[in-house]
């Protein structure tokens, strides 16, 4: 109970590049998406993983849930190596770690009604047929959707509603850890706020451990207790969220912070604007 619920130890993920011939001859080059990453997530932590494209934050997410396997290094789920757990593809460990995706239009199967999507998920958790419908409705209510959503297809829902369904689907497995990969970045700002508030409430109420992957520092600040800043496959800074944002140690973190739009407050006098972007922190 005391150890970290999720730990990465020296995890590297590289992808071979090149055609069939290159691969057979073993002369394919590698693209390193994640480079020797070590981190620990404590139970109940709400961790924001921040970085730009190519930072490896999404690779980290798919490694942590077991969508891909690390090239080297070890991932521990509650102290047990994920590699060993994955030998039992549908094992009980599966339900413990679930994922919420970006609403890219592909997060939900376009041909399945919401009810069917949730019922099939519950079936895999072993919920008996008789109680699946009740539980589906309870899940929808949990994420703030009415039961009238159940017979609808994904395209009949708004982006915010689809994202809530995605969340309900993940919660249907009764996970301990939830990994959310840019779950609000494609939503309109007014819907974004709804989903962030919902995530915040649910992590608190259900005692979830949340890995929140985002490019938006301000969103992470609102939601997370801890922050991990990544760049080019490496962790450049990590720590308590407010501390890091108030006193960023790494120049890249400083650059990220200074890049966040600050509205009127961020307006610079013409002369000051010419100065380096990194200097205007805070």
């Amino acid at each position, binding site marked *: 109970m005391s150890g970290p619920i999720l730990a990465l130890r020296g995890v590297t993920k590289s992808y071979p590049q090149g055609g069939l011939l290159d691969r057979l001859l073993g002369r394919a080059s590698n693209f390193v998406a994640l480079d020797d990453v070590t981190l620990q997530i404590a139970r109940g932590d709400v961790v924001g993983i921040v970085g730009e494209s190519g930072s490896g934050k999404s690779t980290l997410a798919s490694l942590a849930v077991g*969508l891909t396997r690390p090239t080297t290094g070890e991932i521990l789920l509650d102290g047990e190596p994920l590699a060993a757990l994955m030998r039992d593809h*549908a094992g009980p460990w599966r339900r413990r770690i679930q994922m919420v995706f970006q609403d890219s239009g*592909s997060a939900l*199967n376009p041909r399945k009604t919401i009810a069917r999507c949730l019922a099939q*998920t519950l079936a895999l958790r072993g919920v008996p047929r008789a109680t699946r419908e009740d539980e589906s409705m309870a899940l929808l209510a949990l994420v703030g959707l009415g039961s009238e959503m159940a017979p609808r297809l994904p395209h009949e829902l708004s982006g915010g509603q689809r994202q809530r369904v995605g969340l309900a689907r993940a919660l249907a497995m009764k996970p301990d850890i939830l990994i959310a990969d840019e779950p609000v970045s494609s939503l309109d700002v007014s819907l974004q706020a709804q989903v962030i508030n919902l995530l915040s409430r649910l992590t608190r109420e259900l005692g979830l451990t949340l890995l929140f992957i985002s490019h938006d520092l301000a969103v992470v600040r609102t939601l997370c207790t801890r922050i991990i800043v990544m760049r080019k496959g490496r962790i450049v800074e990590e720590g308590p969220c407010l501390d890091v944002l108030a006193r960023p140690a790494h120049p890249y973190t400083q650059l990220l912070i200074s890049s966040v739009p600050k509205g009127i407050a961020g307006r610079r006098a013409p002369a000051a604007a010419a100065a380096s972007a990194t200097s205007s922190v805070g």
Partner: protein
Amino acid sequence: MNRLARLARAADWTGWLGAAIVVVMIGAALLAPLVAPYDPVAISIEHRLSAPDAAHWLGTDQAGRDVLSRIIHGARASLAVGIGAVIIGALLGVSAGLFAAYKGGLGDQITMRIVDGVASIPLLVWAIAIVGILGVGPVTIGSLQFPNEVKIVTLVGCLFSPVFARVTYAVARRIVGADYVKARYLQGASHWQIALGEVLPNCLSPIIVQATLLVAIGIVIEASISFVGLGVQPPQPSWGTMLSDARNALYSGEWWLPVFPGIAISVTVIGFNLLGDAVRDLFDPRNEARTLVA
């Protein structure tokens, strides 16, 4: 009323026409013995080469056989080859494409290279050559005897399979990468559950489009092979052999002999093409006129 909407409705109209043609042709083929006015192989010397009239709507041929009856019975071979080849091709191709897309990695590359290899076989030449090598006689497997067309169906089916494999692969690879498939995987769903329950249903529309269009090509291939004498064997009627026989009539004025079988092929093929186009329009996400209003 604006133009786009009119076009969309025109597409619907042609689609329905295509569907109607396909249904009529398949119906004629299935019910040929009931629908055809005469025995398609019954020779009648006194009625030979009679022009279309009330007794023989589409005339008779050199042996006095009723052209209409021969066309109706000929639909059987054409459609059997067209549809049969597509079924074989779809079974082979869809499973290969689905496997490669789902499996990824080396299995994907090897499967798709094999598909490329099969795709680099010139279909018609090989079909002609192989039937030529094996002979036009019936095929005997155990106690069952199949007509020569079985060879053609199998061959054309095999040679159609790369088309299905590539279409399935292209769509399935996109779907395999979709987040809802990942989500299903993370729930511990089995590979079969994912491949057949999530991936395949979302690939079906382009597969159906291809299938419809390939039936059309299969029909023309059957007619072509029969035309050079390597397909359906006389006296059994086939559109291809009827046209081949009609070549002698080109100079003597029995216009009905080359015209009607040709129209039969063309109309059937048009039917499948129109149907395929309509299905494509229906499913194509790029069809702005539809997605915009939806």
